[in-house]
């Protein structure tokens, strides 16, 4: 059986070349991650057909959207996709309702009234229908744009840095809606971002791009814990663990969570016991000791086994640690690694100074 999504593109601009060959799952959110100029938006535009890669093959759920060998290129308006732009890109001459209806009028399989209401509620835009786009905040505009795309019942939803143009407050306002989508949508979503936080919070599958090429791709946790990603050298290495809330210690403003391999104390989370969450731990917030630390102010100390060491990069390196079923990365100096004589197989203790909780 062929994979749900196959995307191969070769696009040459002279000073920039996009050259990717990807196979992506048919469900969940795939995040295309990379710095600006890495080609992630170009790749998304090629998938949408907004950009025409001279050489390319694209198959979505058994339908071929592009095959340059057979001179086949389905124009964007014939592709069963939903697209959300960085700027909401609403039609300024139409009301919110007019914007939502624009695509609806043009599809064959009609969205029924219930589905219409559901999508409005999911994005919280019921009260905005009669307004003109210019009378909406940036966050509201973007929610309308997402609803407008979803109403088409697309086979695939493409989002191009939908939060990048918004300030932090608006970002916080929309992220829950996106996380919600994650739970309600059965279709694959491809999400472009350069934000670590959005990536860690939303991704099921991670594709890291650099200079127009795919560096690594795979399930989020697995991909993040690799030692060969560009994140390692950028001092941005981190891991994301799925965890479950088991106890609130409200007197200490702490919450205890369970992960595959132990428990962690986190800053108090206002969510019920048993709520699944994601915990992001930056490698630079993790230190290593050989002996079990006593009398330390650090709450989260976990016993671990070294399973990998990265090459040193200007005196810095990353250590890969196995803790239960999870992998943790620790960013340390070359000097420390030599003093402690770290090597694969060694049992150590990982001290976690900081965590961030996602969703």
């Amino acid at each position, binding site marked *: 059986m062929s994979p749900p999504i196959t995307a191969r593109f070769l696009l040459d601009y002279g000073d920039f070349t996009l050259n990717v060959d990807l196979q992506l799952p048919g469900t969940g959110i795939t995040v295309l991650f990379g710095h600006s100029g890495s080609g992630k938006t170009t790749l998304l535009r090629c998938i949408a057909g907004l950009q025409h890669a001279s050489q390319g093959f694209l198959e979505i759920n058994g339908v071929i959207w592009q095959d340059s060998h057979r001179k086949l290129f389905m124009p964007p*308006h014939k592709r069963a996709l939903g697209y959300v732009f960085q700027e909401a*890109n609403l*039609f300024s001459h139409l009301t919110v309702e007019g914007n939502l209806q*624009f695509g609806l009028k*043009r599809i064959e399989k009609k969205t029924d009234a219930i589905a219409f209401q559901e999508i409005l509620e999911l994005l919280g835009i019921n009260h905005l229908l009669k307004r003109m786009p210019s009378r909406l905040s940036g966050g509201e505009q973007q929610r309308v744009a997402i609803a407008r795309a979803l109403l088409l019942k697309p086979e695939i939803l493409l989002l191009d840095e939908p939060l990048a143009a918004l300030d932090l407050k608006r970002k916080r306002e929309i992220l829950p809606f996106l996380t919600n989508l994650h739970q309600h949508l059965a279709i694959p979503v491809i999400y472009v971002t350069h934000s670590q936080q959005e990536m860690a919070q939303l991704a099921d599958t991670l594709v890291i791009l650099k200079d127009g090429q795919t560096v690594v791709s795979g399930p989020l946790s697995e991909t993040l814990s690799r030692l060969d990603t560009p994140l390692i050298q950028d001092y941005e290495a981190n891991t994301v663990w799925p965890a479950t809330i088991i106890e609130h210690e409200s007197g200490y403003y702490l919450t205890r969570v369970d992960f595959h391999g132990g428990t962690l104390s986190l800053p108090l989370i206002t969510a019920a016991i048993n709520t699944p969450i994601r915990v992001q731990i930056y490698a630079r917030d993790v230190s290593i000791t050989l002996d079990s630390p006593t009398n330390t102010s650090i709450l989260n100390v976990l016993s671990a086994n070294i399973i990998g060491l990265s090459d040193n990069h200007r005196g810095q390196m990353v250590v890969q640690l196995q803790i239960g079923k999870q992998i943790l990365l620790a960013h340390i100096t070359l000097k420390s690694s030599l003093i402690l004589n770290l090597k694969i197989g060694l049992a150590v203790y990982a001290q976690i100074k900081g965590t961030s909780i996602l969703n």
Partner: protein
Amino acid sequence: MLSNTDLQTLFLTFKVASFATFLMLLLGTPLAWWLARTRSAWKGVINAVVSLPLVLPPTVLGFYLLILMGPTGTIGQITHWLGLGTLPFTFAGLVVASVLYSLPFVVQPLQTAFASIGEQPLEAAATLRASPLDTFFSVIVPMAKPGFLTATILGFTHTVGEFGVVLMIGGNIPDKTRVVSVQIYNHVEALEYTEAHWLAGYLLAFSFIVLLLLYTTLKTQPVTHQLK
């Protein structure tokens, strides 16, 4: 007051201007669209040709048209071959000349309006299942409405006000090619200053009111200032 002849010239003037404006919108819209979007090397050349009437003395344009549309001219031979006769000194000839003369006043506001819309709404429409033609009528035209309004008014009023081209190509044939501007000239030549006053006054009032409406109804600055 206006005599019957004067009324006839007024009526003829508006007829010419209406026909010409209709044709200019028909030709000017795709032309302006192309000019607003193309990266072709021909863009500069076509832009210059379309804009020529802005700087050319109307008599020069009229003279060339007279030659081209006359019995020995290229266009004249084509119209003759088509069984249409020759165009100079006919109503049709007047309309054709007006179209060429006033076209920049239609093309430039449209071109500016189309260019300011940019790529984004087109891409949004494409991802919402609208074909390019569908997008043109459902997105571009409504978004460029101020541009169309400006183009229509400027094209119409400019045609009403033409004189030199008419004189060269249309002459002064009563009820066929004699338009208001020529009639005013006739009155002045015959020292009929009262009659000239009435007609000139009508034209002045008409132009002022139209421009007043244009500038007060359009919230955004009309593109007239970009013409000169």
